[in-house]
């Protein structure tokens, strides 16, 4: 790390609900990227699936004018995260460098307070040691810690990718390497409904959308959590015909 004095970044995400088809590819991509354990039918049925990301599906209207409303829900990486101050051990802590909300697994003692206090229900808990039978554990991503029983976990904005991109940019002297980084969900999203980028970067394509889109809103803005994810309202009529 030769020179590390530039402005800290603020990573952000824009999710266009109009483009989201609810296909759940992001959910699987997140799981496969982040070594998320599957838990099995009974545990999922009891609300213990380890989904760092899930797509909420509500219905609107009555038959036959009925339709789903999809909202991909993940950690909003709040600027003022309710989960952070309540952790007694600093396991949930704000990153000054990435401007995201970190979960430090080895510091977590499993009070689960953060999860209660997360209005987005973005946190999931390792209720057991989930075993992946050999040889299936071979696909585990070496960049991501395998969480053990008793710790909380959540979406990290693929922080391992961010860190690696930064290291690559620093050591190769090419800052653009850092701009290309994206999260697993955004990478997989077939309609590009999920867009990821650096909000401090003037040229970042999501900066305008994040700050100025007339469809933009943030979930539970009224709680003052200052999320790093802006949703673009879907379903409505804007710009085009009808």
């Amino acid at each position: 790390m030769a020179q590390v004095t530039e402005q800290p970044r603020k990573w952000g995400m824009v999710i266009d609900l109009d483009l989201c088809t609810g296909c759940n590819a992001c959910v699987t991509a997140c799981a496969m990227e982040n070594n998320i354990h599957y838990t099995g039918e009974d545990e999922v049925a009891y609300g213990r699936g380890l989904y760092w990301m899930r797509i909420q599906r509500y219905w609107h209207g009555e038959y036959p004018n009925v339709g789903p409303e999809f909202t991909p829900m993940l950690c909003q990486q709040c600027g003022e995260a309710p989960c952070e101050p309540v952790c007694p051990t600093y396991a949930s802590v704000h990153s000054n460098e990435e401007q995201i909300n970190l979960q430090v697994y080895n510091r977590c003692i499993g009070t689960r307070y953060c999860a209660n206090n997360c209005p987005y229900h973005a946190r999931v808990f390792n209720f057991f040691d989930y075993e992946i039978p050999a040889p299936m554990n071979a696909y585990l991503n070496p960049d991501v810690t395998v969480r053990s029983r008793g710790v909380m976990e959540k979406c990290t904005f693929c922080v391992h990718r961010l860190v690696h991109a930064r290291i690559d940019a620093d050591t190769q002297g090419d800052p653009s390497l850092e701009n290309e980084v994206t999260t697993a969900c955004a990478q997989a999203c077939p309609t590009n409904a999920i867009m990821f980028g650096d909000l401090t970067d003037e040229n970042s394509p999501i900066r305008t959308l994040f700050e100025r889109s007339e469809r933009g809103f943030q979930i539970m803005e009224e709680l003052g959590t200052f999320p790093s994810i802006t949703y673009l309202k879907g379903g409505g009529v804007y710009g085009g015909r009808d």
Partner: protein
Amino acid sequence: MITEPIHLALFEEDQINEAAEAISILRSQGVPDRNISVISGVPLSEHILGRPMSWSRVGLIGLVGAVAGFLAALAITYLPVLIYPLNVGRMPVFPIPTTLVVVFELTMLGLLISTLLGVFVETITPSYGPHGYDPRIAHGKIGILFTCPPEVDCESYDQLVALGAELTHNLQERKLWP
């Protein structure tokens, strides 16, 4: 310390007036207050018995403990974040409202623990006065322990007995603790 023989005048539990009278007799006999001590099964205040105020530093020790707790609270709240600041929920690094909670608890903890320590320390500190004991105290009896020079003995004994006291002489000093 006290090498003179210890005498004990025991009164029944309802003979408070007599006990007070006995003390004034002893005093008039020239037994200094420091050579008298009263032992009882219920707390009897100095005013009742006409005794000089005894003093205790328990309050002071407690106060010192409270200050120590206060300082400890400030130290564990502020020093670690000075060394290694961690940001949570965009709270200030030194948030006063949350600190108050910690400060309050640790101050009280300091106060209360040191009060106990004060009681303990003062108890095991050697004290003045005759060191006798009679288990009948816990029966409610009021005992007056005193030492006095041999020349005043007979007269005062009679007076005490006249008040209803049961006299015991040359009490063995018993080690009660540990």
